[in-house]
């Protein structure tokens, strides 16, 4: 297995290039769809917007994920399936109960807080791939939204925002605003605003008030996403407190950035107790 440092360097360079390229594509797609907006009149021209929305976002998300996954150690890779299962199972329970939130990104935020934005990106995109494989392929075009959540949650963790109860929902609020804006073009141009019964009605109401389709889906997203993500981030902060300290210490990202702001005696006790 010849691994020169050169090879490793070039691979890292390639991964970074993938991440930058992916991020650029996502941003460019959004800017094209919102600012250089394709005239949104009548029927046919929206098709290009929809191809660009779906294509740009999916390709961008794939680049981000491909660039991110190589850096993940096995501990993180083993964590991600549990996180995705959590996203999906909780998301399903919530939708069955019919609560007005999604809570389908608890796992993504948790992984991002423990292992950083790259891990959050991979968890995010694969959550939607799994939704696509099991329940409904309409989740796939929205993969980029989970990717954005992963990046923001990881960054919030790096800044220590999961250490306090009031900063976690704040970070969630900001993430929610961005998520709403990023997802709006997909909801508008791919689904015509009709991603579900309740949301569809709200989109219709905004349109009736004179909003454009994109404007209507953006406003609809802003109504639900920030609250949803604020709750999600708070739940994650609570879970992080409940997880055994030794488990948290296994993640270099969490240690390095002191995501939880605690070390020392408590960790000691835990380690001894778990030993068996």
């Amino acid at each position: 297995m010849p691994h020169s440092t050169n090879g490793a360097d070039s691979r890292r360079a390639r991964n970074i290039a993938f991440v930058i390229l992916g991020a650029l594509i996502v941003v460019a797609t959004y800017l094209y769809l919102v600012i250089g907006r394709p005239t949104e009149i009548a029927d046919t021209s929206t098709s290009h917007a929809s191809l660009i929305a779906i294509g740009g976002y999916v390709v961008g998300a794939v680049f981000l994920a491909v660039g991110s996954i190589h850096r993940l150690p096995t501990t993180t890779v083993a964590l991600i399936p549990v996180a995705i299962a959590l996203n999906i199972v909780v998301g399903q329970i919530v939708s069955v109960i019919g609560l007005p939130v999604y809570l389908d990104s608890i796992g993504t935020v948790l992984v991002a807080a423990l292992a950083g934005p790259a891990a959050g990106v991979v968890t995010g995109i694969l959550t939607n791939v799994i939704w696509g494989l099991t329940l409904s392929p309409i989740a796939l075009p929205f993969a980029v939204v989970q990717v954005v959540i992963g990046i923001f949650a990881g960054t919030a963790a790096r800044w220590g925002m999961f250490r306090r109860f009031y900063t976690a929902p704040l970070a969630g609020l900001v993430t929610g605003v961005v998520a709403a804006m990023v997802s709006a073009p997909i909801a508008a141009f791919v689904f015509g605003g009709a991603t579900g019964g309740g949301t569809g009605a709200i989109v219709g109401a905004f349109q009736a008030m004179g909003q454009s389709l994109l404007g209507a889906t953006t406003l609809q997203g802003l109504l639900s996403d920030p609250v949803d993500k604020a709750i999600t981030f708070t739940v994650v902060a609570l879970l992080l407190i409940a997880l055994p300290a030794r488990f948290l210490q296994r993640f270099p990202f969490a240690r390095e950035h002191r995501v939880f702001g605690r070390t020392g005696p408590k960790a000691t006790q835990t380690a001894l107790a778990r030993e068996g």
Partner: protein
Amino acid sequence: MSSTVYVDRGSSIHRLNPVTKLVAMLCIIVIVFALPVWWVSGLVLAVAIIPAAVVSRCGRKLSRISATILLPILVVLFVVQGLTFPGGKTALISWGVFTVTSEGLHFALGIGLRLVCLVLASVLLVLTTHPGDLMSALTARGMSPKFGYIISSTLQLIPAFRDRANAILLAQQARGLSVRGSPLRRIKIMMPLLGPLILGMFTDVEDRSTAMEARGFGSTARRTSLVPVPDSSVQRVSRWAMPMVSLAVIVVPFATGAL
């Protein structure tokens, strides 16, 4: 036991190389989204998706799954856009403050048919392709094995997650916890059960990563695979041909000014 919808009907579609099917699905989606006319979607449906569904012998399951996904979306789409489409001018029916416009319906038809193609094509892929085979085929083509691991592992963890939740619930009932009562009470019961379930699953991660490393998951050797992925030279050619044809189908109408 996994949470996938794959059904083994042994048809010729089932026996195709998963990557061939994936490429075909992507081509279909790109065509219907790139050519902004409703009848293109209709044509793709008629000449590609429906025949494939018939050959695969999964038609019934395909329509059942797709209908559950699509019906709510399509109904909302036609109602909302028919009534409130911003570009709507030509009124078809008026009823009090509500006006259905033909532009709105036309818009909904265009989007709706594309979504039908998107959903049918991808559900058909999932119905006829075992996720394990798809992952092996993609890994063999250079996809990071970590992707394959995460996806396969999640698919099998979801039922295990549910089983464990059931086992915990059963054990608590055996300690006198009553689950009768209002939905609100049931949610209240679920929370203390889910918390430890989640903690348990997460603390198991330490063991799982140890076990994976012990079996060479971190090895940089080129992966081999126990079960061969079926392939043929016809498929190898068609995996290149399909994107070319799609590209031509998309570009030619613009080049000739037909659109």
